[in-house]
């Protein structure tokens, strides 16, 4: 380096250095402008992303009278008329605890069944030499293209023949199956990338092959399994298409149906109540997502490509 510097000095290239510093400030200015534009764009995207949530949060706090006369000032955050009446009404004047209980029964049962099946399927697909594996995997992929909503119509008649309409089981079966395809896929891809050394060591320690696989791989595949849990939970929690058609008796209403029932039941939609309900339903998912953010992102990038 010194040699070069000396040569540069000797041959009188100092002027070029000056030019470089000028160029540097020029580039720095360009970079600063570029960063400024990037911040502006990112801020705009963030506003686009959070505005609706911000809006329903405000709406959920305002009494009905102010809603029909929405104007620009109601979009600003500071008001003196905030009240928790909407929340109070939902929780204490409606069978909200019952809806919550139903939703929790449905979601936990179908998540447990769905993720349990996905773990065995995923690990089996990844580690065992199964005859016709490629064909079976192709089949899973093709089946994942069939939209769930296409199945709603046949389910309806099938389940009415089996007398499963308007029951927990009638919802738990399709919910857990809905999670299985994608989750098996996800766990299979994740386990494919795990080293085989540990399970081989466990076999030497005296575990049976299957025992070794499950004892070793289940803890190691934790990120994929947690993502599968989140996805399996989200499906039934947010479902309206299926539950809305299947459930008719009020004592089996889920939160999603209950929300429709109390906000859309009358001629005009009660947006205050609706917004409050949306916030109530959104918060658990919001917490879940931020808690699992790392796994969700990692899991999705594994799921989309290896």
């Amino acid at each position: 380096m010194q040699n070069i510097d000396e040569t540069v000095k000797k041959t009188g290239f100092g002027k070029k250095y000056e030019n470089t510093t000028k160029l540097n400030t020029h580039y720095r200015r360009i970079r600063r402008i570029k960063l400024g534009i990037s911040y502006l764009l990112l801020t705009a995207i963030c506003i686009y992303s959070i505005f609706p949530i911000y809006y329903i949060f405000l709406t959920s706090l305002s009494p009905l009278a102010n809603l029909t006369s929405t104007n620009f000032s109601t979009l600003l955050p500071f008001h003196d008329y905030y009240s928790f009446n909407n929340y109070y009404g939902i929780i204490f004047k409606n069978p909200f605890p019952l809806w919550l209980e139903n939703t929790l029964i449905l979601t936990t049962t179908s998540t447990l069944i769905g993720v349990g099946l996905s773990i065995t399927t995923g690990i089996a697909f990844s580690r065992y030499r199964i005859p016709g594996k490629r064909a079976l995997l192709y089949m899973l992929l093709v089946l994942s293209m069939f939209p769930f909503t296409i199945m709603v119509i046949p389910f309806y008649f099938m389940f009415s023949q089996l007398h499963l309409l308007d029951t927990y089981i009638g919802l738990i079966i399709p919910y857990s199956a809905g999670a299985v395809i994608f989750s098996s896929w996800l766990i299979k891809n994740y386990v494919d990338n795990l080293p085989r050394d540990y399970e081989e060591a466990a076999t030497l320690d005296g575990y049976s092959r299957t025992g070794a696989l499950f004892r070793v791989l289940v803890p190691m595949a934790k990120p994929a399994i947690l993502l599968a849990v989140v996805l399996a939970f989200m499906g039934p929690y947010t479902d309206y298409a299926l539950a809305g058609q299947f459930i008719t008796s009020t004592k089996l209403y889920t939160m999603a149906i209950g929300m429709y029932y109390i906000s859309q039941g009358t001629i005009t939609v009660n947006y205050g109540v609706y917004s409050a309900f949306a916030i109530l339903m959104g918060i658990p998912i919001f917490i879940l997502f931020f808690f699992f953010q790392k796994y969700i992102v990692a899991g999705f990038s594994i799921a989309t490509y290896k």
Partner: protein
Amino acid sequence: MVEVEKQMDSANKVKPKSDAIYLLFLLPVFVVLGFLDFYPIAWTINISLTNFSEAHFFTYSYVGLTNFYNVLTSPTLTTVIMNNIVFAGSSILLMAGLGFGVALLITQPGIRGKTVFRSLILVPWAFPAFITILIWKNLLDQHFGAVNQVLSLLFHVSPNWTGSVPLAMISVILVNLWLSLAYYTFVYTASLQSIPQELYDAAQMDGYGTLSRVRNIVIPLLSRQIAFITIFGFIFAWSNFYIPYLLTSGEPGISTQILITYSYTEAFSYLSYGVAAVYSIISVLILLVMVIIVNHYSKMMSILY
């Protein structure tokens, strides 16, 4: 010792050609799939050949390919397929394009507060989709919606977002963009971060600007991933039921009906299940043909091995 040797022996010996016994592990899944996928698919195909409807609820009979003939010759089908192509095509172009752009912005060197930006972009994803779609319906309301409140204050216009012909489809696409942007941003961020830093450094040494860096490094390196994400995004958008159904219910007219929502409308509003089944079958067939063609050229199924 003898025990261990025996076990090692058996571990070495027992390497069967195939593990047919382990098909048992897959049995529950395929029983469930048979019950919940194969049977409904067979049922749908079967019902598409009958006149099953409200009028023939208990006494339906086979009518051959009449339903297919009626659907294929009706102008509705062309409109709905065109809507579906417009919806899925422009959605995926916008979502993947904007997601890629935002990911590039976030992974830029020198940007601060990446976590804050990323968390804020994730917000739409954290709320159940059917709730946020209905919130957008409220926001886009012609008279009381917040969007028009702002627009009428600033520009003195109040367009009928969900009720007029080109705007309704645009609203549906924009709401879809809002819902999916987080996913595409995160996936692309993950793939951009997988590019080794040395390549960027080398590009900087060579005096590459942002655009030439994207064109010469990012796109060639990520082309396979970009193609994969885009194709799967299209498949998902093709049958994205909730957004058109909840936001516009396919209205005005049938201008925002896609195949899957139209099938649902035929079944539950017009109660003609045979025709509904035909629309379902057409939707899936188009998707399958598309996937086979794309796979033929891009070998995207190679992810399987």
